[in-house]
Structures are given as C-alpha cells and as structure tokens.
C-alpha cells in the first residue's frame, strides 16, 4: 500500500509537475531566489521586485501554457494528480492565470507606491507569492486536506502582510485581529473537516456526494440519521471557514478592521485574490456535495441558505459602508457586499445542479459559473483600481479619509477618472465591466428562481442592493468631482507612470464591459471552465 502510494506520487510528480503544477513551482522558486538574493546581497544589483515580477510572469506564462494546452486539446478530460489531491482542469487554470495576472499587477502597484522598502522587499514579496501559491492550491483542491492547506497557506502570509507596516498601531492591531479571527475560523473549519471526512470515510471532495448518499441510504432514518446530521454539521463548520475567507456576514468582522489597518495595496490584494481562491474552493466544495439524487433536497436547501446569507451579506455591506469615513474601510464593506453578490451565483448554482432538470440546464449552469468567474475577473480590475487610487492618493495626502479626495478632479483627472470608472463599475452601471458581470449573475439567479421561488427574493434583494450601494459610492464621487478642493489640502500631482498604470486598469474595466472580443472570449472561457469543474459530477 505504502509503495503504491510512493509509486503514484513518483509518477505524478515526474509526469505532471511541469504540466500541472508549473505556476506554483515557479512561484516557489522565485521565493527561494529572492531570499537567496538577499543572502548574497544581490538585491543591490537586481531589485527584488524585478525578481518577483519575473517570477510572477513566469508563473503566468506557465499557467498560460497549461491553458493553451487545454484549449488546443479542446476539452482534455479533467484529471487529478498528486494522489488525487489536486485537480487539473480549465477551472484551476483559469484561476492560476487570474492570480498570476493579479500578482503582477499588485507587484507593479507596490513598486509604484513604494510600500515595501528595499530592506523588507524580499520578505514582503515572499509573503505575497506564498499567499498566491496557497490561493492557487485552493483553486485546484480536490481533497479536504488540500482545502485546509490551501486556506492556511493563503491565510498565514496574509496575516503577516496585514501587519507589515511595522511600528504602526493600527497595522499591528489589524494583524492581531486578523490572525486570531483567522486561526479561530481555521480551527472550526478543521473540526468540520474532521467530521465530514470521518463520517464519509474519505477526504476526496469528488467522492463526497456519493459517499453521503450511501451513508444516507444505509442509515436507519434517512436524513434524520445521526451520521448525516454529523456530516451536515461538518459542512456547516467548513462553511464557517470559507465564509471567513469570503467575509460573509456574520463572519466578516475581521474584514473592515484588517483592511483599515493594512496598507491599501495589501487590502486590494486580499480583497480580490483571497476572495477569488475562496470562491473557487467554495464552488468545488459545493459541486462535490451535489449531483446525486439523494443529496439533491439537502443541497437545494443549502443553496437557498447560501442565498439568504448572500442577501444578508450584500445588504449589510452596502448599508454599513454608508457611514464610513475611511475610504479603505468603506471599500472593505464594499468588498463584503460584492462577496454577497458573487455568493448569489453560487446559491443559484446549487439550486440548479440539484434540480431534477440539471442535465437540461447544462448551458445555464456553465453560464452561472462563467458569470461568477467573469465577475471575479472584472472585480480584479475594478477593485484593484480603486485600491490603487487610494494608495496613490495616500502617498500625497497621507490620509485615507473620503474627505481627502475632495476636489481631486481638478488636480489629477487621470486618477479621478479611473476611480470614477471603477466605482461606477462597482455600482454596476453600463458600459463598464461590473455591469456585465452583475448582469450574468442576476441572469443566473433569475434562472434559478424559476426552479425555486426563494431565488426571486435573492434577485430582488440583489437589485435593491444595487440601489443601496449608490449612496456610498456616490459619496466618494461627489467628494472627488462635485466638491471644491480645500485650500489647505496637499496637492496631488501624478507622475506619468502611475497615471498609465491606473489608466490601464480603468481601460480594462471599460473594455470588459464593451469590447466584443474580450467580453466574448472571457465569457466563453469562463463558461468552459464552468463546464470543466462540473465534470466532477457525472451528469
């Protein structure tokens, strides 16, 4: 048995390392290289960020290679490797590319804003890259162990990054809160994993549904069976861990504090990347539990439960954001709200794949996952854009209050227009990308609503929230555009590089809403990725 395992490990490692794990490997190598550079004082000749950028680019290139391979083969059967620990399919490749791209953009931003000084750069970038590896693992996890490992690998460096602004009280406080909250959530999740894996007798997520149906059928009282209840409890506890990562109400408390305490760059990274990974994981976890008739009823209820949480989260986030004065905190609540929107897609997904007509709905299910991925892709640009503007403005005003944005349009139109584009996109106003993403999610929710009425409520709440959100986004816009710049406010004169950077982000947000090629390609790929992740279910 042990030798079997070793053999398998060997074949997996040698056979699939480059093909399936290249991006992660490149990042790992980069971390080592960066640390070595400092050891050998090479960082005086080659700035660390160059190494990090090269590493990130290499990871992206590797992921892209995987992508083109899959596309060329046109639907290579999704496979698992590392002893069924990880899963390699278009879905995971999508997230690898996504994360690698995001990594590059984040590193570029930190270079522009100069957040880690030369001394700390290797540490910072190591943490950044390490967290990214964790997120990539989250996106390709096929086993509950990998679920836990991925979450932890993403979280632990994040704790450190939040506290990276040494000597600043808010930063250390934020880090402490984040770490304690995160560790607690991780513990709870682990306990849940132990229950699920134990009762089902496997950690393999793709087998969960089948095992559950066996357990349920063998039990004396169907779903009343204590074992099934235990699994349900375990799933709940796992969800707590994921909810923490997604900052869903009521597990969101860390989010505003951590974002406020952390630098804007880190907050931007956390708000997008960790959320993306967590959503990938959630989708995999949910699909793993679905698709078997025996669990359909249970999982539909679960889906509606997620829908309810999504509603509460979106509403809470949007309402709480209104009174915020600190713009990072405001954006943190915005992040919470957007997690709510995206969770709606997952809820819709669950309702659809557990309905009797799931086969007929294949297209819509793919579109649903595709919508989520599209939203994440747009979210990457628009949220990073917003945080980038905050970071850039902070470097001039040393202030992160909404008031510090007053009358900015007169001084720095590029920054303001980027911010406008990002905020309008966050609201979901055409022709920006956020609108297309939101449209796709709402469309999926509507489709699901035809299967279960409760999703109409979700749809209505989602629509209502779009209106709620206007209030606080417009507060920023009003401050920037409609109000006069106070005479004593520091002036913001942007160097051209930074201007180009934010303009690229804004341009992408706009293009993702308008450019036919981009929108089409991305939706098609996202929808294919959805198809690939659904392969777990035999259909």
């Amino acid at each position, binding site marked *: *048995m042990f030798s079997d395992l070793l053999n398998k490990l060997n074949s997996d490692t040698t056979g699939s390392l480059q093909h399936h794990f290249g991006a992660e490997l490149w990042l790992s190598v980069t971390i080592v290289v960066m640390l070595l550079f400092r050891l050998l004082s090479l960082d005086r000749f080659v700035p660390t960020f160059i190494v990090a950028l090269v590493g990130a680019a290499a990871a992206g290139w590797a992921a892209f290679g995987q992508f083109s391979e899959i596309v060329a083969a046109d639907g290579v059967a999704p496979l698992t490797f590392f002893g069924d620990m990880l899963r390699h399919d278009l879905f995971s490749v999508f997230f690898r590319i996504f994360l690698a791209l995001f990594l590059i953009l984040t590193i570029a931003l930190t270079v522009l804003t100069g957040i880690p000084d030369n001394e700390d750069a290797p540490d910072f970038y190591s943490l950044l890259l390490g967290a990214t590896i964790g997120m990539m693992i989250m996106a390709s996890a096929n086993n509950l*162990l990998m679920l*836990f*490992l991925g979450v*932890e690998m993403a979280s*632990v460096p994040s*704790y*450190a990054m939040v*506290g990276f602004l*040494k*000597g*600043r*009280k*808010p930063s*250390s*406080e*934020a*880090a*402490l*809160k984040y*770490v*304690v909250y995160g*560790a*607690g959530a*991780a*513990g*709870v999740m*682990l*306990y849940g*994993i*132990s*229950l699920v*894996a*134990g*009762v089902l*007798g*496997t*950690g393999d997520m793709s087998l969960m549904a089948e095992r559950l149906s066996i357990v349920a059928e063998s039990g004396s009282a169907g779903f009343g069976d204590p074992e099934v209840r235990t699994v349900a409890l375990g799933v709940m506890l796992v969800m707590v861990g994921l909810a923490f990562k997604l900052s869903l109400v009521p597990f969101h408390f860390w989010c*505003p*504090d951590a974002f*406020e*305490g952390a630098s804007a760059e880190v907050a931007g990274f956390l708000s997008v990347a960790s959320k993306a990974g967590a959503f990938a994981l959630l989708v995999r976890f949910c699909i793993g539990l679905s698709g078997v008739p025996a669990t359909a009823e249970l999982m539909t209820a679960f889906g509606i439960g997620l829908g309810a949480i999504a509603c509460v989260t979106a509403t809470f986030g949007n309402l709480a954001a209104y*009174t*915020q004065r600190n713009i990072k*905190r405001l954006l943190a609540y915005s992040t919470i709200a957007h997690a709510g929107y995206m969770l709606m897609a997952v809820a819709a997904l669950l309702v659809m794949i557990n309905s009797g007509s799931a086969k007929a709905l294949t297209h819509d299910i793919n579109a649903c996952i595709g919508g989520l991925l599209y939203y994440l892709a747009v979210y990457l640009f628009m949220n990073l854009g917003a945080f980038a503007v905050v970071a850039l403005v902070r470097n001039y005003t040393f202030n992160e209050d909404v008031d510090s944005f007053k009358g900015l349009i007169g001084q720095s139109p590029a920054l303001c227009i980027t911010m406008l584009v990002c905020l309008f996109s966050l609201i979901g106003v055409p022709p920006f990308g956020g609108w297309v993403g939101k449209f796709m999610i709402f469309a999926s929710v509507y489709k699901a609503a035809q299967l279960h009425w409760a999703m109409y409520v979700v749809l209505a709440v989602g629509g209502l929230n779009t209106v709620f959100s206007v209030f606080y986004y417009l507060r920023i816009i009003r401050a920037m555009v409609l109000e006069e710049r106070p005479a004593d406010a520091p002036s913001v004169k942007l160097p051209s590089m930074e201007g180009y950077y934010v303009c690229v982000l804004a341009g992408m947000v706009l293009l993702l809403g308008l450019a036919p090629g981009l929108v089409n390609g991305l939706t098609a790929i996202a929808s294919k990725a959805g198809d690939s992740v659904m392969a777990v279910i035999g259909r």
Partner: protein
Amino acid sequence: MQPDLTSYLLVGAVLFVCGVVCMATKRNGIGVLMGVELVLNGANVNFVAFSKYTALGLDGQVFSLFVIVLAAAEAAVALAIALNFYNNHLTIDVDRANKLKG
C-alpha cells in the same frame, strides 16, 4: 471497556469546546492562541479516531500530521504578530485592540 469511536469523538468535542471557550474568553492574546491550538487538537483527535474506525484509514493520520505542522507554522506567525502588537501597545490584552472599529 474498550473505548469506541464515540468516546474519542467526545474527547475531540470537549477539546473543541474548551478551545472555543478559551478563544472567546481569554483576554491575553497568547491565551487566545492557545484556544486555537486546543481546537486544532480536538480535530486531530477526531482524525486519528476516524482513521482507526472508518474507511478514512491512513488518510486521517496524514491529516493530523499536516495539521500539527500547520499549527506550528501558524503559531509562529501568530506569536510574531502578537509580539508586534506588544511592541506597539505595550500590552497583549486583546481588549486593547479596539481602535479599529465602526
């Protein structure tokens, strides 16, 4: 009396609850982290027990090994952060971490 699965799970559950209560009530940051360790170990007990009694088999033990390592890593980071907090606040009382709110 040969202990059965339920007994082990009970131990795990007690550890879990103790850990949670500890997390929720301790004012000392280190104490809170200790609560986390308790929770993780509660889960570990579960894993090992399941590995003996159910089809989980060796996987359960591998699980707990990974968890032990990760707990150590996490504790290291957490302690570093706690130290950082102490450096800035001259206290480790988590109730003093109340500047960020609202």
